[in-house]
């Protein structure tokens, strides 16, 4: 039992303790933003959008001239990843590109109106798009761009107050046009020996392990696919001597390259040879004769037009349906003439209504040059509906070539020819190719150099002799 005195003492003591132990818990907090940038890139020089690689996150594989997320000019507040909400900044850029479109979105740290300018140079000469209302979110889309082309762009963001305009510069590259057909052989020639054997020779493209060449023969028409005709050669060589051929017969040959990596054959380079009588004075006079030029009249579209008219859907095909592609870019046709670079593979693409494919027997492109004669390639249907393709190996030297894209409704007729001109020139590595033996319309480079050296030598010799 607690005595009264003790009870009062306890109360007083507790009062004192309570008064003395008055306490508040003080709390202060601080928040920071943590950000991590994930850039998908395996640096294998192959742009792989399926892994999320793009021109912004993976410039090594998907090249750009500058990295857009590294702005050339930033607000005074520092890098964009650490912007202050009191300073106008641009961040969070995300872009997608196709062969002919570009979409870009970005955020601003303050409401702003932006203008977007773009062009093929840093002058941004192709246009400007401007926002009319301020926002944090911004986006722009461009259409009808050129494939495989570097574009430059600039964003100018303006806030409400007198803070400086923020400028952001970058570039992007549109995706290259995907080519389906692997490269063909080049320089296909046929030389008939005196005993009526045919020496077929060609130049292989770069062959990987498992790649090989298949040569087919037919006496009715060109073998238009790797299973059409009689296989007379398979291997990695660059020539083949046929058995003795029959006089008075036209032989048709096609050379296909099998690419192990894609398990695809090239579209096929073709040629034909008419074997004359054994007593032909030409054969007697010359040991060999090149008969691949000109090919038999009945097949040459430049000499013999189709006597039968194709159905309207085929005869309506024009150069609008024909595309020439080099280095992932579509080559423009100006007044019916397409300028191509020498030394680079040239892909010929014909696009038709997929419903029309069942009406087309085959498509062949014939190239004619006054000094080289005819060179011909089959175009094959690709996995893309309505798309026929063939890839010609490097063009070697500047010259003008007529082409005829012959769309065969049936073999050999009716067919519809689409005509035009290829102008080979410009830069590129001269690696030999279908026109390498046809060149000199004028002087080639080596002859020109020899001429210059000879001229210098003569001048020096003349000067030396005169001084004596």
């Amino acid at each position, binding site marked *: 039992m607690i005595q009264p005195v003790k009870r009062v003492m306890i109360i007083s003591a507790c009062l004192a303790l309570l008064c003395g132990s008055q306490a508040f818990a003080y709390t202060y907090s601080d928040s920071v933003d943590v950000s991590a940038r*994930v850039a998908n890139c395996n640096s294998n020089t192959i742009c792989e959008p399926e892994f999320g690689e793009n021109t912004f996150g993976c410039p090594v594989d998907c090249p750009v001239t500058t990295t857009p997320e590294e702005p050339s000019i930033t607000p005074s507040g520092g890098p964009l990843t650490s912007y202050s909400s009191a300073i106008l900044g641009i961040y969070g850029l995300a872009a997608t590109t196709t062969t002919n479109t570009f979409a870009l979105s970005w955020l601003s740290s303050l409401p702003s109106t932006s203008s977007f300018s773009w062009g093929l140079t840093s002058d941004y000469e192709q246009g400007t798009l401007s926002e009319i209302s301020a926002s944090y979110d911004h986006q722009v889309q461009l259409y009808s761009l050129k494939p495989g082309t570097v574009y430059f762009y600039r964003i100018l963001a303006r806030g409400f107050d007198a803070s400086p305009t923020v400028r952001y510069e970058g570039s992007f590259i549109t995706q290259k046009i995907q080519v389906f057909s692997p490269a063909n052989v080049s320089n296909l020639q046929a030389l008939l020996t005196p005993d009526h054997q045919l020496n077929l020779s060609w130049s292989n493209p770069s062959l990987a392990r498992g790649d090989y060449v298949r040569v087919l023969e037919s006496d009715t028409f060109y073998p238009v696919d790797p299973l059409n005709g009689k296989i007379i050669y398979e291997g990695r060589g660059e020539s083949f001597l046929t058995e003795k051929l029959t006089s008075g017969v036209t032989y048709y040959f096609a050379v296909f390259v099998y690419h192990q990596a894609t398990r695809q054959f090239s579209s096929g380079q073709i040629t034909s040879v008419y074997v004359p009588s054994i007593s032909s004075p030409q054969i007697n006079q010359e040991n060999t004769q090149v008969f691949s030029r000109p090919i038999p009249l009945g097949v040459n579209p430049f000499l013999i037009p189709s006597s039968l008219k194709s159905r309207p859907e085929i005869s309506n095909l024009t150069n609008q349906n024909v595309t020439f592609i080099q280095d992932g870019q579509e080559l423009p046709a100006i007044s019916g003439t397409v300028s191509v670079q020498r030394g680079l593979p040239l892909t010929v693409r014909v696009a038709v209504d997929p419903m029309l494919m069942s009406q087309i027997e085959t498509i062949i492109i014939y190239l004619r040059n006054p000094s080289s004669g005819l060179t011909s390639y089959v175009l094959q249907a690709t996995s893309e509906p309505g798309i026929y393709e063939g890839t010609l190996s490097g063009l070697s030297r500047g010259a003008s070539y007529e082409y005829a894209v012959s769309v065969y409704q049936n073999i050999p007729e009716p067919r519809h020819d689409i005509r035009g001109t290829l102008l080979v020139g410009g830069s590129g590595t001269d690696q030999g190719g279908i026109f390498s033996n046809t060149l000199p319309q004028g002087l080639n480079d080596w002859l020109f150099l020899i001429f210059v050296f000879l001229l210098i030598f003569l001048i020096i010799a003349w000067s030396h002799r005169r001084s004596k």
Partner: protein
Amino acid sequence: MAKRFLFQRSHLFAIGFGIVFPVLALAAMMQSSGYEIQTDSLNYGGVSLSTTSEYFLGDTLGELGTGESNSTDYIMGAGFWQMQESYISISSPSDISLSSINGVTGGAGTGQADWHVVTDNEAGYSLMIKANQSPALQSAGDSFADYTPVGDPDFTFLVNSSDSAFGFSPEGEDISTTYKDNGSICNTGALDTADACWDGLSTSDKLISASSTSNQPHGATTTVKFRAESGSAHIQTSGTYTTSITVTAVTL
């Protein structure tokens, strides 16, 4: 009469005890194993704590020599309520950008921030950390999983090759024993091995540092390291991942 006198004398004694006791306490601060009385007061009235929904009020009557005085180096607040002011501050580091992560081949991004806490609170402080969302590190279409140690924090940051994760590791003189180690295991020992003892964030506070004494004027720094890692067989969607980290300092 004698009994009444005795009662009054007892009252006086008790009241005197109650008055004198705090004076003695001022001279020698009283404490037990569990509590510490930092200050007390000699006064004759007042209410220690009055509250409304918005305000707290503490008042005393009869104190002498109260008010603020100062010198070049010190500011003194004399009086019971002056001494009840406890101070705590926390620094505000810059936002953190982790180093870039390769989402295809895998890789790690790291970054860190220092929080400096100064308090004159004799009972010390505690420092806690939390994220604003779960999982903490997110982009518009993907996220890093919050790092999940097995029991105690992991001494080494480990992510399966087919996963990705985001975690933190505190370092500093006051870090919680949870994040101390013996050189190979966390939550044991007294070491503070660099880049060791990794844990995952959540939307609830996790204690990372604490002290039971005042640390003014120098304070104490807690460094929190952050790490986001994507495994070599994991495809992390490209983009910018963000989270907001809140660190809270509380006086005890």
